[in-house]
Structures are given as C-alpha cells and as structure tokens.
C-alpha cells in the first residue's frame, strides 16, 4: 500500500513551520506508523533531504516518548494505544494522512514533530512523590492496603506521561496527568501524610506552566493511551478543595514558621 503524508515541518522553536507533502514508498500493512516514518526518512536521506524529526523510544506503548497528532487525533485513530502501537493496516491505500506535533501553550515545538514536555517534570518535582528516604521504610506488609484501593491506584499510576491529554484538550489542560498522580498517592495509606501539601503544590506548578483549566469535555480520557478515567480529575478537585480549606485552618508548628495553636 501507499499513502500520502501531510507533515508539519518546523526548523526550530523560533522559525515558523508549515506542512509538506510526501508520498510514501510501497508499505507493508503490518508496519507500525513509526516504522512507516523510518522508511520515509531513509528515503529522504538517500534523496539528500533532511529526515522528519519525531520522538520515539520503546515502541511498545509504555515509555511515553512518542507523540504525534494523526489526522487531528493525538496518538492516532485507535483508542487505548500510543502512536507507536498504531499500525498501517488501519489506513487505506491512497489515504492522505495529516501528521502534526502535539500543540499546547505549555509544550513548545522543538523541531518538526518534537515538542518539549519538560513542564510535566517540573510538576512532578513540585510534589509528585512520597518523601521517603532510602532505607527508612518499614516492612512492606506492615501496612495492609485494601485490594480495591491498590487496584484503583494502579489504574491511575498507569499514566505514561505522554501529554496526549494536554494536546487533545481545547484548553491545553494537564488536569488528567496531574490528577492521575495525585490520585495514585491519595488512594494509598503511604500517601496520606503529604496529601494536602502535594495536591496544592502540584496544582500551583501546573498553573504556573501555562496549562489551561478543565471544562469537562473529557477529550483527555478519550485519547489517553492508557484510558485513564476523567473521574480522577473530580477526585483531585475534591482533594484540592479540602486541602485549600484545611491549609487555612490547620495550625502549623512554630518550628516550621507558624504559631502554636
């Protein structure tokens, strides 16, 4: 099979980009979408043109490196898979396929189809952790965790940090990404001591990075390659509200800057 690609080319962050059209050589329908781009790139190389820059690594849907908006949809036509798990058999002979980078204010284009998602790392650094020094932990079975809570925490923890949720959202919101991490820890007993502090810090950083707010269209969970539920956003909103109120009324020790109650 052969298809036509309409690909976004952009030299770097400061140069305006544009679409260019490429015709692919003959493809095997069992190729992955990224393998198709490999073949196109090899052909461009031989012709003396610059290959298309795109992010990729594990090619099995778990590292979260690959991105791409394919025909208007982050990670392509199928539910519950990343771009690297999209196969050419899902397209037809002669199709014109539009390939763009993830577009969001907080994800600047680096080159062609590559965007910077460093904002996600900074949100994590602001509070996406449980503070536990190596070696300080008690026995793993000392604190039982109800299976239901562990399973739900795992649903949230499955996030691969790809940013498709942001790219799909008309507000460029990162609420699903942040909510997944907040919920994972909020559901586990180990996450309780820092629960309020965490959600406040992560949301503050999320806002500072220029991500938009959630207006309940749920495009995020629709394109999420791990099908993480938007219900976690509601959970984070509840946590955020409670933490905001509590933070006003909770007395803090004089040793951490507050006055004794």
């Amino acid at each position, binding site marked *: 099979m052969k298809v036509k690609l309409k690909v976004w080319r952009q030299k770097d962050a400061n140069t305006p980009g544009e679409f260019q059209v490429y015709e692919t050589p003959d*493809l*095997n329908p069992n*190729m992955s979408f990224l*393998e198709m781009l*490999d*073949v196109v*790139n*090899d052909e461009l*190389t031989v012709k*003396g*043109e*610059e*290959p298309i820059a795109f992010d*990729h*690594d*594990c*090619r*099995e*849907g*778990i*590292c*979260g*490196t690959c991105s791409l908006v394919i025909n208007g949809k982050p990670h392509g036509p199928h539910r519950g898979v990343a771009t690297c*798990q999209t*196969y050419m*058999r899902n397209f037809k002979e002669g199709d014109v396929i539009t390939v763009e980078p993830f577009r969001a204010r907080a994800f600047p284009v*680096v080159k062609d189809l*590559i965007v*910077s*998602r*460093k904002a996600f*790392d900074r949100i*994590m*650094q602001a*509070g*996406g*952790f*449980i*503070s*536990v020094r*190596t*070696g300080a*932990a*008690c026995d*793993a*079975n000392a*604190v*039982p*965790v*109800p*299976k239901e809570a*562990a*399973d739900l*925490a*795992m649903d949230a*923890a499955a996030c691969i*940090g790809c940013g498709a949720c942001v790219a799909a959202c008309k507000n460029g919101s990162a609420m699903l990404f942040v909510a997944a991490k907040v919920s*994972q820890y909020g559901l*586990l007993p*180990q996450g309780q001591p820092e629960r309020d502090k965490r959600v406040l810090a992560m949301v503050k950083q999320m806002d500072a990075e220029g991500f938009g707010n959630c207006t309940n269209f749920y495009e995020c969970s629709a394109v999420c390659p791990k099908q993480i539920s938007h219900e976690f956003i509601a959970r984070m909103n509840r946590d955020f509200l409670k933490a905001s109120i509590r933070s006003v009324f909770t007395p803090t020790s004089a040793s951490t800057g507050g006055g004794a109650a």
Partner: protein
Amino acid sequence: MAKLESKIPSGPLAQKWTKHKAEIKLVNPANKRKYEIIVVGAGLAGSSAAATLAELGYKVKCFVFHDSPRRAHSIAAQGGINAAKNYQNDGDSVYRLFYDTIKGGDFRAREANVHRLAEVSVNIIDQCVAQGVPFAREYGGLLANRSFGGAQVSRTFYARGQTGQQLLLGAYSALSRMIGAGGVKMFTHAEMLDLVVVGGHAKGIIVRDLITGEVSRHAADAVVLATGGYGNVFNLSTYARNSNATAIWRAYKRGACFANPCFTQIHPTCIPVTGDYQSKLTLMSESLRNDGRIWVPKKAEDRRKNPNDIPEEDRDYYLERMYPAFGNLAPRDISSRAAKKVCDEGRGVGESGLGVYLDFSDAIQRLSEAGVRERYGNLFDIYHEITDENAYKVPMRIFPAVHYTMGGLWVDYNLMSNIPGLFVLGEANFSDHGANRLGASALMQGLADGYFVIPYTIADYLAGQKPAARPKTDAAEFRQAEENVVGITKRLLGVKGKEPISHFHKRLGAVLWANCGMARNAANLKKALKEIPAIREEFWQNVNIPGEAGTLNQSLERAGRVADFLELAELMCLDALERDESCGCHFREEHVDPEGECLRNDEQYAHAAAWEFQGEGKAPVLNKESLVYETVHMAKRNYK
C-alpha cells in the same frame, strides 16, 4: 594488563556484606556536600542512585539522553521483581534466591555479589511500597506474588504487566523530589560521548546537548554509569530504539575493562519477526508461562494447520516433555534453545516457520477468560495490536529475541571498574547474572545497585579523595576528550556516502544473530570476525548522515551509536570464540552433552573474561578474573 582486584570481603558468604559495610570508609556529613558525583542514565539503577546519593548529601549531576528521566527503558519491564520475602510461606529464603540466581547464571557470576543481591532484595520491596508503588495485592491487603522461570517458589512481586514502569516511576519520584530540593541537577537531552580520566581516575564526562548540538565538559569527584545494556547491537531486539552502548563503549576505550561481552540473553517469548522494515521486537512477559503452555505440532506437515484443529495427541508440549520438573518455567536460555531446536526440525509455526505456540486454552478452562484477562489482559491487548490476532481464541505465536546483556563493564565488589572513580551499575555492568539472567532479576539488580549498594561503596572511594579536589574542566584531559568527541562528529558528517544508517545496522544485526546468537561455533564466529570489520569499513566510507552538528540531528545521534556497535560486535564475537565451552546463553555447538545441553568447562573457563582496549586497530588484551566458589558446589545445571 589491567589489575582486576575483585575486593570480595573475607569471611562466611552470608556475612560478607554486613562485614564489608562495617569496615569500609565513610564520608562525614559536612564533607559529603563538597563532593560532586556524575550519574549517567536514569533508569532503575541511575535514578535510584542519583536520588539516594543526593539524600545522603552529595552534590549530584544526572545526565540522560531522553527528554525526561522517566523514559528510560527500565520502564518496559513487564513481569516483576524477585525478593526473598517468603510471604508465601513456600520455603523461600535469601539462600534460595541466591542459589537459584547463581545456578540460573550457570555458575559464571560472582558468588559474593549474588548473595548481596539476594540479601538486599527484601529492602527493595519495602522501599518501593513506601514510595507508593501499587504492587498487586490479595484481598486481605497484603502483597501478592507469582512465580517466574528458574524458581520453584513464588517470590515475584508485580504491578500488573507493568512492574518496570511502576518501579521506575517510583525511583523517578524519588529523583524528582531531590531535583526539586536542589540535591540533583538534572540534564535532559544530554548524551555522554566520552569519559575524562585524569591521573588514572575518572573525573568527568563530555556531553552533547541533543537539542543545540553544544558539546560541554563536566567534572566530578566520581562518575557513575548506569546506561543499560547493549542488545541493540543486534538491530532487532526488545530494547527501546535509542538504547545504546556508547557510554560504556567509550569508557572501554578509555581503559575500563569490558567483561563477558558475548553473554546475551535471548528471551524465549517475543512476537516473531514479520518483515525487513521492522524496527524492534516486542516481548510477551515471561509471566505468561505461568499459565500458558508452549507447544509445536509433533509432525512437521501440521505446521500450517489451524492450531485449534490439531488434536491434543498431535501436539508436542516440548518444554514439559524435556524438563518435567520446571516445564514451561524452564530458564530463558534453555527455553529459547528448545524453541530453536523444534523450529530447526521443521516444526515451527507461522508464516516464517520461526515460531512456537503459547497456548492459554487450558488456563481459560481453569480460570475462565475473565480470569486470564485479569492476570494478563494488557499483554493480550499488545499482542492483538501487533498481530491482529485474538489470543483468547487462537494460541499466541512466539519466538526468541534479544532481550538483555549479562556482559558489561567489569566492576569489583564495590561496583567500581578498574578505572578508580568509575562506577558501573545495573545492566551496564557484568556482575550478577553470569551467563544467563533469570526472569524478574533485572529490576532487582538495578534497584539493589542504586538504592542499597552504591550509596555505601562510593564512600570508600571518595574518602580517599580530598574534598573539592576534583580537576577543573580546563585541564588538558578535558580538552583532549572534547576534541575527540568533536572529531568523531566531524568524521561522521564528513563521510557523505549513499546509504542510510539503517542499511549498516541491519546487516550488522543479521551477522551477529546468525553467528553469535542462540548457537555459536568457531567456524561461524571466525567468519563473523571477518564480516563485521568489512561492514564497519563500508560504513565509514558510504554512510549518509544528513544535517549538521549544531542542531537537533537524530541521524547523527544514531550514527554515533551504530559506529560503536560496529566495534562492540567484533569484541562480542572474539569473546564468544575465546570462550571454548558452553555455559548458559553461550551455547557452543562443539560442547554439548549427550542430552543436548550445555557442557561447561570449569577447569579452564570459570572466569570472567575482561577485555582491555589497546588502541585503534590493535587486538584487545584478555584479563581473567577467576570465579572462586567458596560456598556453593559448581554443579551441572539440571531442570529436568
């Protein structure tokens, strides 16, 4: 000749690590902040090491070529992590985990390292649970376990089919915390391209910024490499596409010995190759072998039939037949070879004839389809996406693929290479898995090295170095190393040949797979040793690398890595030729027992083969570290 001092502590095996910890030097808290440590890589080993060293008070700089430390390929590990918790009350112990691992490695690993690994395995699980890793649990709220290859107990902890992801995100959260706290300075899109050795000690690295192309120098009091394995030398493997050997290879060329480079794990359960365009192979977790049964038709003429039409009596469940005690859970090297054997007999299935069935129909009858889905649902989904087949209805087709490298830079008991100040962790070193790694042991080793070994052992080195005495980056050695890096880039871009990089990588992979893969012999290895330099020469004359150095250039990145693979492959074949015995993954067809199994030669080859670079175009020198077994008897591996 390099001096290989293993520094294994004296005393009884079970007390060596405790004794060592009590005896090695410490760095006092006020001095720790005066030392800078470079950590390269942020997979399980790198991120756990960077986070823990920063918690202790050292100043840490961490470098990854990815856009984020969360992307390292540890993330793709599926099945689980071993630990000697004995929560199942099924007779597990530190000794048993140690023994299974050393036996699994076919007695080619260092006894003391493996015992330490088994000891600290229990701390890893505690640490990860405290970090919020959502391991699978039973209804009572306690942790669940499953079994893995090479073991007769259930000691594997797991988080669905995404255990590596969850452990890595746990370590990434610890690292993120320390980045936020200022203890770790993180460099992303930063690829290490050379090691800087000053006065015989590792004191820095040269890095290329993959976005701007800028080359920079970084000095430190010690350098820790946790850059993973080199299986992509085969082109097709289960590794992430960008995993590479460049950091360890360039350290090798600065004098670090490379041990057992030919020890490559070929994993038995991967989705078979379908075409020349393929960029990678996908693993189906070994955990599937808990419930799936592996078979091929008894008669070659049945191999194209619909598997569901082949009656029970015409199926050969060959692992259960050949290894009744371990059955479908025989170790990886043995299972892979068995698959090769039945395919060589003409009984392989699928289009290419290079495949065997992994069948869940018995498990579905026993557990129901929903029960199987709960255990392995995501793996069945992956299989469906790739092959367009429904494995609940038709058996999966699987075939062995390159998955892990047991070889790596030589390290002593402190995980320090023969270059003082250069430490090597995780898959990048050679130390714990011998000639074959058991399932669920890679995650264990990565985290053991990073959380629980290096934080102690690095102090023993640093205590001998004056605080804040590291060289400045304007030293001649830094300038020379930077010139080397810039020179390689220039040479690559200057070739301006005709063929894309993939052309050479594919050919290299084919030569290695055919001659240094699941079965090896002297004639083939000698042939490969002629073919590889020829491909390398052609690469340097005819590779086409578009673009420039001072910008994001993915072709240039890959070209540098493939150039290193073209050298490393030769060393692998040389090592495989030199090791004239069969052991674990290294199956020399000349050395087979009457039952077709590996025939080891403990008298001549009970050593780690540590290769030392002698300069371009010169043959490397082979150093040998004898493996002395003080406690276990080097028995014949038997899984029957």
